[in-house]
């Protein structure tokens, strides 16, 4: 370990922050991370947080029950605004669900060392976000108990799904994405499960982790095939992660509704997804490293890099907003032009300006290193961006529908209590799962950290 300069000095040195604070050995990283799961007692904070989120999950169940009893009419949706919070939340959650796989797959292929200490819980976050997202397409239907019509199975009616519909594409994209992310996450976990098995303090832990580890021994043959499979998965997950939000964007781009029917959607939806995904990773990482003292592993370098990614994707999103306007006026399509004007001074203009503020203006602060290195600022900003991205989906889904082709049918949308309760419920579910995760599984990939230690010791400290 040769980096001996005190961390805070001239900028050019600070930019060379380590991805792993010096002085760590295979054992030390293993101990520190495994301890969170195996030995550390349940803190009052954890218990409080869990109880709160658990009650929110109950709220979610309550809302769903009432929904099944009464029907989607309990929401604010109407004709012309057939889609409201449900789809907004769906798209938002799916978007968040993109960071994990992106970090673990694309950064892996790009051989970015700094991914190592954040990919594990980023992937977990992905899974939970997808779980939350997956609820909505189901419950937003008028007859959820009939939703199985959307799967291709040989029915006695002799009829099948209609594969030209983007909603069917969604079904396949989301379920594929869920499955692949789960497998990716699990095989990533294998060696760490083995570690936990071998360090388990009691029989129960041994059996549980032992069973999950499937008898992993870390033999050279295992590792060889393992790496091959992991690389392939990464290669597969990369186009997948791009395709998923592309398909989600098709839900809108394929339709003819002004404000939906746009070719820019796929790229800027993907960018937006990564944008919100990283924001959510920060929202989780910052409290996590603080609570469990993982500052050594999730260093300023990570936060700084993620901030930069957000800045970049944020700019792409900004470009997307701009192109929407440009194309509206360039094409001269009177409906698109009208909608563009509606966004600026229609009844929902405030939402649009709020969106610009959250998603385009605020992130510009990230140009400044001072901001990128101010943990508190980053945390706040990540929240702002999450809110902004939610607003973006609201603007797209709702505003476009309020004033489409025939003025006589124009309407407005106002969410009801049940819209909010369902949304907040999924927030609770998401955070609750995170709580369970950090205490049940290693939040950082131990094996990869050991690898990192090895590499660090070899690369003699010049961090790439």
């Amino acid at each position, binding site marked *: 370990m040769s980096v001996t300069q005190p961390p805070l000095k001239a900028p050019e040195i600070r930019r060379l922050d380590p991805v792993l604070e010096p002085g760590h050995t295979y054992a030390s990283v293993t101990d520190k991370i495994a301890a969170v799961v195996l030995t550390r007692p349940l803190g009052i904070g954890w218990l409080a947080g869990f109880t709160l989120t658990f009650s929110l999950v109950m709220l979610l169940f309550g809302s769903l029950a009432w929904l099944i009893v009464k029907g989607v009419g309990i929401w604010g*949706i109407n004709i012309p605004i057939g889609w409201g919070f449900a789809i907004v939340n769906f798209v938002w959650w799916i978007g968040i669900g993109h960071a994990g796989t992106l970090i673990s797959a694309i950064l892996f292929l790009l051989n970015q060392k700094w991914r190592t200490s954040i990919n594990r819980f980023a992937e977990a976050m992905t899974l939970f976000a997808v779980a939350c997202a997956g609820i909505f397409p189901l419950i937003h239907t008028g007859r959820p108990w009939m939703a199985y019509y959307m799967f291709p199975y040989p029915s006695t009616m002799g009829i099948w799904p209609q594969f030209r519909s983007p909603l069917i594409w969604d079904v396949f994209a989301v379920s594929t994405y869920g499955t692949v992310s789960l497998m990716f996450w699990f095989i990533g976990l294998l060696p760490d499960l083995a570690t936990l098995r071998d360090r388990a303090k009691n029989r129960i832990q041994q059996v549980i982790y032992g069973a999950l580890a499937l008898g992993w021994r870390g033999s050279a043959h295992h590792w060889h095939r393992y790496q091959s499979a992991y690389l392939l998965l990464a290669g597969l997950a990369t186009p997948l992660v791009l395709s998923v939000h592309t398909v989600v964007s098709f839900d809108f781009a394929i339709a003819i509704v002004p404000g939906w029917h746009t070719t820019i959607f796929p790229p800027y939806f993907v960018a937006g997804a990564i944008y919100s995904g990283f924001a959510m990773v920060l929202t989780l990482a910052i409290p996590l490293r603080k609570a469990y003292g993982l500052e050594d592993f999730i260093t300023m370098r990570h936060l700084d890099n993620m901030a930069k990614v957000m800045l970049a994707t944020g700019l792409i999103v900004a470009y997307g907003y701009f192109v929407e306007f440009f194309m509206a006026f360039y094409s001269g399509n009177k409906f698109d032009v009208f909608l563009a004007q509606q966004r600026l001074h229609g009844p929902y203009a405030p939402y649009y300006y709020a969106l610009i503020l959250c998603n385009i203006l605020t992130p510009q602060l990230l140009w400044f290193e001072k901001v990128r290195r101010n943990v508190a600022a980053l945390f706040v900003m990540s929240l702002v961006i999450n809110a902004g991205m939610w607003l973006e989906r609201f603007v797209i889904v709702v505003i476009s529908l309020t004033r489409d082709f025939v003025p006589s049918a124009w309407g407005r949308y106002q969410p009801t209590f049940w819209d909010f309760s369902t949304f907040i419920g999924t927030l609770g579910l998401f955070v609750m799962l995170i709580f369970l995760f950090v205490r049940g599984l290693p939040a950082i990939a131990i094996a990869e950290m050991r690898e990192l230690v090895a590499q660090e010791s070899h690369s003699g400290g010049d961090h790439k």
Partner: protein
Amino acid sequence: MSEHANDKELRVLQGAPQNAPAHDRGHDREHKDHAEDGTLRNFTLDLAAVREKLKEKSGKQYWRTLEELADDPHFQDLLHREFPRHASEWDDAVDRRNFLKLMGASLAFAGLAGCGRPDESHIVPYVKQPDGMVLGKPNFYATAMPFGADAVGVLVESHEGRPTKIEGNPDHPSSLGSTDALVQASILNLYDPDRAQTVLENGEIRSWSAFLDAAQGLATAIKAQNGAGFRILTGTVTSPTLAWQLRKILAQYPLAKWHQWEPASGEGAREGAKLAFGRNVNAVYVPGKANVILSLDSDFLASGPGHIAYAKQYARRRKLDGPNDTLNRLYVVEPTPTVTGSSADHRLPLKAGDIELFARALAGKLGLNSPVPLSGEAAKWLDAVATDLQKEHGASLVVAGEYQPPAVHALAHAINASLGNVGTTLYYTEPVEAESTENLESLRELCADMAAGKVDLLLILGGNPLYDAPHDFDFTSKLKRVPTAIHLSPYYDETSVYCHWHVSESHFLETWSDARAYDGTATIIQPLIAPLYYSRSAHDVVAAFSDKPGLPAYDAIRAYWTEASAHLGATIDVAWRKWLNDGVVPGTKFTPITPELKFSATSLPPFKPSPADQIEFIFRPDPNVYDGRFANNGWLQELPKPVTKLTWDNALLVSPKLAQKLEVAHKIASRGGEHGQVRSTVVDIALNGSKVTAAAWTLPGQAENSVVLPLGYGRTLAGFTGSNKGFNAYAVRTSNALWTASDGKITPTGDDYPLACTQYHFNMEGRQILSTGTLEEYRKNPAFAHEGAQAPAKDNSLYKEFEYKGYAWGMAIDLNKCNGCNACVVACQSENNIPVVGKDQVMRGREMHWIRIDRYYTNSESAASGKATGDPSEYNPSLDNPQTFFQPVPCQQCENAPCEQVCPVGATSHSAEGLNDMVYNRCIGTRYCSNNCPYKVRRFNFLRFQDWDTPQLKLLRNPEVSVRSRGVMEKCTYCVQRINNGRIEAEKQNRPIRDGEIVTACESACPSEAIVFGNANDPNSRVAKLKAQPRNYSLLGELNARPRTTYLAAVRNPNLELEKA
């Protein structure tokens, strides 16, 4: 969709005696219950009794029984005794139902039995099947709906004894095969569960025989005093038989009197005729023959006797097949926009009070009296109109409005005479009403006598005077002084409460009767179904006081017509069946008379105009609930009113300028918004020493200082649907100002009130939606509708087109003919089992109408212009007198349907004949199709809108159409049930379907023949011919959705003089 089970039961009903559908479980218990009533109702009910009643019931029947109990007054007393707090919630549907369930649970748990697999369902065949009935095949019977001084002949569709749909009777002069919204909706009244169901004496249930005895008792007493103190109050009577019976009664009781009161039909016509001819005559118009028509505040296209026939004749003169066709021209002077005014070529908003002035001025111009100076717009107008009328001597027509004073009518008669129109564009006959009395005076006299205690026995046949009499008569207190009052009415209403006896009145589909049309033609009204409840007709009640008590209505009718047949030169036994079959009695049409004009305009007293800035209050019947008699009709309550597009409420109609002055405004609520909820200022109206609070509605085209108080709302005892909706304009209506009042005051209260408005934004934002032009423009370029918005050519697609080789169903809607009267909307609702969703849901933008009528103002400021909002929420000059156009929008049945492509389960797809099929049972309700529908014609069952519980409503349903449940999308199907049945019949006869053989519900209802449906592939079909016209265009054609429904651009025929001026 298991909920369908019950409905299916009805569809396969195989067991109804001709006209008492005893097969429906719910219904036949109706009878059992009443049977029990006698016994059960003698002691007052207690919980134990209720338990008893419920014990053996289970599952569905259990709840049904509860529902019926709910209608048992004793049960309601019981509730008040046992659960005082909840009982208050009784009137609210939801609470009522929930509460019933609660009650059920607390009484016994029997109802929760029977889960698991669906139990066996039963087939209940007839014991003796009636002749001429084929199961599953509807029969049509001719009858007529009496209404005011008119009766609309109808053909009623009956499925195994259940009347389900009303169609027009082509042979009947008032219908000519079409109907209007009220006629279409009247069938819902038949099945209204809130109807009065028995005879009541002081609220206690009595048998009919008990009433007969009582009646005879009273009769003998009255006879003793020679009929003194015996009064009969009716509405306008056009039933020859009833008049005959009444006259007999009057003969029996020499001192008895017959009074008449129709709250919402003006007396101007009657009194005007007396003024002009010295006696009452009936004017019958022939707008079809008129090239120029001037309406002096007359809504002759949409209300008043004969309006359906008039609309048809008028529309035929708006036919425009080529540049050489000519159009008639319609001028309308009116204070408030009506259907007629909205379809006029020239419309002049004028205070109702100033119309007489205009009429005098016109007379002056025509040299009937000394010239009268007019100012401003009106002056310009006058010249143009006068010259135009004179140009068309003998082919012009001046129509005076129902609610205009006698003078205007007299002037109209004079003007028509001087223009040589009498005999061509209008003719006179004997009055249609059996007894011409001046209603107001007649009622005044009755009230005076009641006050003076001169009335011992008052017989109120129909009507609801307590609610609708002028408030200065204070009918209530006077009625209280009458020893015995007997009220016959379909509902236990405001008046019934103060009457000692209440007899529930039979619906016109339940009883024998007869009625005359606007031209005198008589129709025998025959029942289609035995009375659902213990109800009676006016004939029965009158007979009860005659020397033949208990004489059935049928015998009375038959007796009268046996006499009458002699004069008609027919032998009744031969003619009777034919009369019933045809729905008209031949030879009863009044022959034209030529009364000589005993009136000169000069003889009129000098006119004293009201100051221009003084606010004038005018009373008008509501276009939907009329004088209040339709208040409990959900279809009409939810029907957007033709011009305002308001539902479920009436509102004080204010002109934009006045609104600005009074600072009454609209706020678009964010729930529902333009398509649903608008919050508008509440105002106090102080008028005629009385006060009422109303929501103010800004109405473009309203005369500046004139405000309208629509009648018929604010009912307190209308039933569940109609009670406590809107405000009661009668509360400020006095006998000295029945139609027009002044020196009242309007003061905003500061709070606002949510109104359910289905279309608030009235500007087309420069889109190709409702294409309009003038006759000149049309002649220059018949294809003007296509300018700017060309539909892409068929061949610029990468893919092979689908071909429609067989039938290709299509529709053409002629916007030149449509006058926005709403008949099609209700017809569709009736044909397709479309649920009523209630005000709250309408305010959320969730109404279910499959066809809507959009109303646009073409010369209005647009939202895009940034200047105005494109709605009346802020003033701009274009709102003072905008050009109004209507556009019916059903599903456009696009060939490249955007909705189909996005449905994940293929619940909507194209049929081989080009229909955009919607399969409810496949739909999972993603609502994606609706989002992607550019026309927003799809409707979604956000909640359980359909009423599955009320047995009466099940009888109403059309068995040919699936009843949709919660969570599925629905929309116009081009009445696919009619298409399929038509095709099946044709195929059985091994022949192609004939043009016009299949008629959609909207088409058949339309009075102006604006909607034409047929096979677009057959070049000789009417629809193909229309589609071939250059006027034909597709709504938003540039989207290339290729709608099968296309429109023919509206062409107005303005007077160039006025145009350039």
